[in-house]
């Protein structure tokens, strides 16, 4: 039986406040130079006008897909599924920055920092292995994010 873990998102509870994005950067010690480099991104999508205007508040990072296309497409074998948690994790030492993973990802989860190497959400695999929630789940003021573990 395969294992899968992912960070579930309940949109009705999200305000796009960005606490998740900030906690993610604090946890991963990253200091991106632009929003596109954040592992977890927030956005607001507006539809309609006046009193019919509807706002969708969103928080998006790697979906940790069941059959993650980024794994097979990576020529260097950087991306793999963690055996214990099922999170889609990576070791980017061999990354050549070809962006193949980025091209097959529908939600732009892989990001590329100044050294050109791929980085992304690893589900806070290190925290989950140690019995802790991912940083974004831990911080979310409205519990819009939660850790799902399937066996």
């Amino acid at each position: 039986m395969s294992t899968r873990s992912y960070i579930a998102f309940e949109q009705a509870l999200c305000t796009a406040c960005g606490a998740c994005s900030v906690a993610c950067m604090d946890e991963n010690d990253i200091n991106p130079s632009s929003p596109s480099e954040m592992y977890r991104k927030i956005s607001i999508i507006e539809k309609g006008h006046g009193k019919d205007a509807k706002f969708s508040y969103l928080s998006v990072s790697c979906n940790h897909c069941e059959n993650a296309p980024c794994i097979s497409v990576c020529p260097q074998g950087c991306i793999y599924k963690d055996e214990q948690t099922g999170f889609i994790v990576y070791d980017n030492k061999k990354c050549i920055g070809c962006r193949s993973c980025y091209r097959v990802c529908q939600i732009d989860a892989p990001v590329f920092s100044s050294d050109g190497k791929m980085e992304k959400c690893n589900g806070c695999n290190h925290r989950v292995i140690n019995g802790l929630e991912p940083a974004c789940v831990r911080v979310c003021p409205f519990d819009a994010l939660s850790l799902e573990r399937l066996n």
Partner: protein
Amino acid sequence: MLNLINRFTILQALEVADITDNGIIIKHTMCDICTPGPHCGVDAYVKDGRIIKLEGTKGFPSNDGKLCARGAAGRQYVYRSDRITRPMRRVGPRGSSEFEPISWEEAFAETAKGLNAVKEQYGAASAAFICGYTKWFRPFLHRLAYSFGSPNYLTESSGCYWSGVMANRSIFGVTTAPDLMNTKLYVAWGSNPPIHAFPLARNLIALKKRGGKIIVIDSRNTQSVQMLADLVLRPRLGTDGYLAHAMARVIIESGLHDEAFIKKYVHGFEQYKQYAMGFDLASAEKVTGVPAEDIRTAALMFAETDPSLISPGTGITQRKNGFNNYRAIMSLMAITGRFDRMGTILPNAYETTFCGSNGGFKSFEEEFIDSVRPKNARQTVGLEQFPLFRDMMDEGQGMTLASQILSEKPYPIKAAFCTGVNNRMYPDSKQYLRALESLDFIASTELFWTDICKISDIVMPVCTSYERAEIKCYAGKFINYTSPAIEPLGESKTDVEVFSGLAKSLELSDKLLESGYDACARYILSPSGIKDWEAFRTSDGPIPIPNAQKYIVGSYLEGALKTPTGKIELFSQLIASYKRPDLNPLPIYIDSCDDAPQSEFDFVMCAGARLPNTIHSRLHEVSWTRLLRPKASVDINPIDADRLGISQEDEVVISTPVNSISLAANITETASPGELHMYHGYKEADANSLIDSEQLDPYTGFPSYKQFRCKIAKKEDL
């Protein structure tokens, strides 16, 4: 720029079961980036004396493990690259940024010399003691000012929070707090709890889960509108008072007002009723832009759901008619008997136990300040102009300081002791800076290298909540005494240590203030019933307050209320006593907009409605939060943008008769047509530099941050 630790430090640490083996210590502290309201509990992961990670403290009274984006960015805030780490003396001309490091002894001695020189030449009142952010040390600064002999203790709350306090006091004799846990209907009027105070919003979500309803009244289309509202009213900016009176008329005409309650407890109902009857639904629709039927529905929903409550935001008051608009809203609570009853609004018996937090008992904070109050002092800044402020608040009206400095009327101000002061919090912020620049002497305490620091003679570095021990009360029940999570950065001290040191150098013979924070707090909190102070000091988490009293709902109404008539006053006898034609005892409605010609200045701007990623200027230079909204930008409705040919992120110029600024356009349905919204405090696009400092609410002296005329154009079209 930011000295980030090895990114795998925590990762490696957590791979070992006992993380303390890796030298990481978890310190329980609090976040002090925003107001004294939440002051959320924080677990700081500290390794080798540096914070490496922050998380909310689980089980903490306000936040229960959660943090907002601002609090989550606390590590970058603490280690901001422009933190001041040594006392500095200015050596070049004002504003030149030419400073040299000095010792604390020199800083204290020179500050004492500068303040005393002004005292000798002009009198103690000519030195102003100005409180900016944060607010944790307020009573201590108040005492320092009074011990020095100056009545001029001034805070930013004279443009932010006090107007709502004054409105409540004028009606009910006390401030009030919503009894959210027991209500069935909550009206969020001009506030957006998910963004300005998430612990409150969590309680609102719980209210909805138990079947309660929420009405949101806001000119903006906010998270509250989208996520919480069962009914939404979006009045034009500043027309809240008109809307409230139209609702009052619906309530009275439907016989939903509480006649027995009014007869027993309310003063001035007949005059109020007569006035409110002038606000029919058709006119209200025209003025407020809210469909008449929605006004009617909201009024009936509020009055027919019992208990229900209205909680107005502070922004309501930051307009020329702001105080009266706020009073008009709260009058709806009075006429429906929704006061001092479960699920309505309750009187705050002990609102200021300690530094703006409620501990459920009467402390000696007032005595701490009052015992050194200067005798026969000159009139406090701004209070001649604003008698209601004089009679209700124990401080000066700081929004008028610049004008007094520049005019030297009624007397000159020649020195300022600034604690975290930010000129961009004041109307016509350039004028404020110019006024301070003209003083004989300025000393500042600050975390960061601000524009006020640049014009100061002496700059003294202070530290964040992570670097100090601090006491705070919660929910009228608990009290917490933190320990420093890390050592103060560089040579920085706590603000109160600076005041104590300065009190010594000034030779004020104020032994209590000289003895420091712990001794002063111990005195102020001596009625708390805490027996073992040392155990409290080292408690490492909130403890119950022994002498906290549970308020008996209805007990305040049983006695005489703290108003001139002893009743709830819809007609304020205090205001009537001033006999000033510009101050009406009734909460009348007038258009708040300034006199700038509408033909040219055809938009109305509201500056400062909360964004999730910042609070005043404090996080604009923190990259983690800045990434969430990288550019200073103005919200404009798609219809207006389309008409003016403005595209997303186009650079636009916003002008008033006072100033012009340029920034990016953000096209969004958040703003209604004809209205603009932007956040304040950006150095590259300072919203408050656009505001006329003379446009003040005549009751409170509050500036019109949230309603002023302006025009907008694409930069390339100019």
